[in-house]
């Protein structure tokens, strides 16, 4: 897996994420999720490490709320109705009710599974593609230099942002600001103060970084620029991307023939 081109890995994550949304059958989504786990095992994503455990638990809690929201409020009629009641009725015209049917259960489970599938694909992406490989990969497939530079500076900015965040938080603590043992509104207020300081610093940093690029004579467009780290795509990369695209087309076909979850979401808003 680590020998694949970074762009192939990126395509894998994005195409499979789209497929997870458009597959009409919940069983297919479960298969995709199983494939996700194989990827996670192959790339040795440390899902049991302290940092990952926190992220996974946080996501699963959020996912439970997604399930509950769909379970109670999607109001999808099905073959079997388990429960139905009116919550609000105004002048016999406007009504809000809860309907729990076999379809609401199916839809709630379906969207939760799709979210889990995409989440684990993202975990795979974070471990399998380093920021550096991604930039070299993109440059090797001739993505414009300016875009690659912006991505690189974004990664640098995030890393600086994280460091500065902890320094500012500590600086506030030395002035008696409590972050742990305090009320939620106070906590929000304190975090807003950190972000104000961070934004000011980030403006300064961005200005300095762009001055540094200019001062080193690095133009955004140059026909003669060479690429030091050139990662050519190999046959297996093209083969995998071809398979992914074929799978995507097949999923779209299934979606059109059988109708799917994605269209029902769109239908809700129409």
């Amino acid at each position, binding site marked *: 897996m680590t020998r694949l081109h970074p762009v192939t890995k990126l395509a894998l994550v994005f195409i499979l994420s789209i497929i997870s949304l458009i597959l009409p059958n919940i069983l297919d989504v479960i298969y995709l999720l199983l494939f996700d786990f194989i990827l996670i095992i192959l790339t040795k994503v440390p899902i049991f490490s302290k940092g990952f455990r926190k992220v996974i638990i946080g996501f699963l809690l959020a996912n439970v709320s997604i399930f509950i929201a769909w379970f109670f409020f999607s109001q999808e009629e099905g073959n079997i109705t388990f429960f139905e009641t009116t919550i609000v009725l105004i002048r016999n015209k406007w009504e809000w009710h809860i309907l729990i049917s076999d379809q609401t259960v199916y839809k709630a489970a379906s969207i939760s599974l799709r979210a889990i599938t995409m989440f684990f694909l993202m975990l795979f992406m974070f471990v399998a593609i380093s*920021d*550096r490989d991604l*930039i070299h990969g993109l440059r090797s497939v001739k993505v414009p230099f300016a875009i690659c*530079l912006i991505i*690189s*500076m974004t*990664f*640098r900015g995030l*890393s*600086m942002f994280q*460091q*500065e965040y902890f*320094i*500012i938080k*500590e*600086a506030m*603590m*030395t*002035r*008696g*600001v*409590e972050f742990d*043992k305090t009320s939620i509104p106070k906590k929000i207020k304190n975090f807003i*103060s*950190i972000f*104000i*300081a961070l934004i*000011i*610093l980030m403006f*300064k*940093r961005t200005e*300095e*970084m762009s*001055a*540094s*690029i*200019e*001062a*080193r*004579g*690095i*133009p955004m467009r*140059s026909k*003669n*620029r*060479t*690429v*030091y*780290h*050139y990662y050519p795509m190999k046959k297996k990369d093209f083969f995998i991307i071809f398979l992914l695209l074929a799978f995507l087309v097949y999923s779209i076909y299934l979606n059109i023939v059988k109708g799917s979850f994605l269209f029902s979401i769109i239908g809700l808003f129409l």
Partner: protein
Amino acid sequence: MAPIIKFKDFSWKYKTSKDLVLKSINININQGEFVGIMGPTGAGKSTLCSCINGLIPLRTRGWIRGSVNVFGMNTREAKMHELGKRIGLIFQDPESQFIMMTVEDEIAIGLETLSLNRNEIEERIEWSLKLVGLKGYEEKSPDELSGGQKQRVAIASIMAMRPEILILDEPTSDLDPQGKREIFKLLESIRKKFDLTIILVSHDTKKIMQFCNRVIIIDNGEIKFDDETSQLSSNIDLLNEFGIYYPISSLKYQESSDLKLEKGHIEQKPLIKASNLSYTYPNQTQALKNVNLEIYPNDFIAIIGKNGSGKTTLIKHFNGLLKPQQGEVLLKEETITQYNISQIAQTIGYCYQNPDHQLFKNTIREEIEYGLRNLKFHEHEIERRYNQIIELLDLKKFEEVYESTFYLSKGIRQRLALASVLVLEPDVLIIDEPTTGQDFRMIEEFMKILKDLHERGHTIIIVTHDPRVIAKYSKEIVILDDGKLIQKLPTSEFLKNKELQDIAAYISP
């Protein structure tokens, strides 16, 4: 020989500034010169550097008169990337110069612009890293490097492009004296080797006198002195006029100090006591090794040591930001873990090196009152303390002139950061590197404030590399090396002990 840099009656004003930042500048610089540029903060030194490599006027809006010619090209008509290839500019803060994710990529990105082939890029990366003593650091990310190492990478990334002119804007402000000396030696060797023209902005008079062959002093946008370095010694009055220090020995600094440890700490109980303190970071770096230290009321201590010797880790234990992994820290005879954050904040004040990390309110008043309001002080008490502090630190005039704290200069922002901490009336004040990037006049002003606070009974702990501050202001020295406390001793004794000075990387001012 025709000069390679020629300023002819050049004046410049930024679009946002009220007055001219550079006024009728006339300078000729020849190839191979090592020129030091000095002057007080805000004099126009960095602006002058930006004019040489074309950032001004090509990328900055403003008003211009006269001309700057570099390699015979008028910078108004030249192309930025053409100038950038031949003139290397290294800024003060190396953190902001890193745009790529590894050392190797950082150097390569400039070389790719020169359209070099892969083999040549590889050779130049190897050569430049060897030059700055960082061979083997190719795969390191900027987060894994110290301030000094980042500065070296910045130099390597520019030197790899083989510029004809190298401009350095205070490149050693984050380094310990030994690190500074190494960088200056490196600059001198590459200048000789490549017949490079170097223009260096620095507040370090001693280093400029040692390495540069010409000095330009700027004040208020005007050239006040432009001569050979050897002429500085006969113009000491001029240096004093512009707040530039003339190097004298540490002992002379000490003689000018009235802060001397005359008697020991007899019958006094320590305010802070660290016993068998050890600390290891998650990346397994052991930052403190069995440190034992006592700090007494009304001490004025300088904690010194090389970069990475454990100074910051030690002081973070004093204000509860780090919890002891082994050993303990007592504050007023009680273990520090028993204090909550607000109690510690009212006992120990901590000022960061960069005031931008500490200030986040829009006005001076809001910033000073923030800590008090957070700790729910009575309105009457807030007003009393606020008035007291702005008078003590002379901030009233800035409150009237500047609507927002964001427009204040770094020196005033640092003073405001001190006020925001001091308003909580802590017994102990810890100041991390109070002099970085400031001119001598500002350092003196800031240190006088600290001296005044010390006379009012505060205990002052400063972490510093600045030999002038150490010699003139501290009563005692705590030396750390590789996480171990080597010795705590009176400053006068330290200044006579060459062996300890070497351990602490101390070099006389």
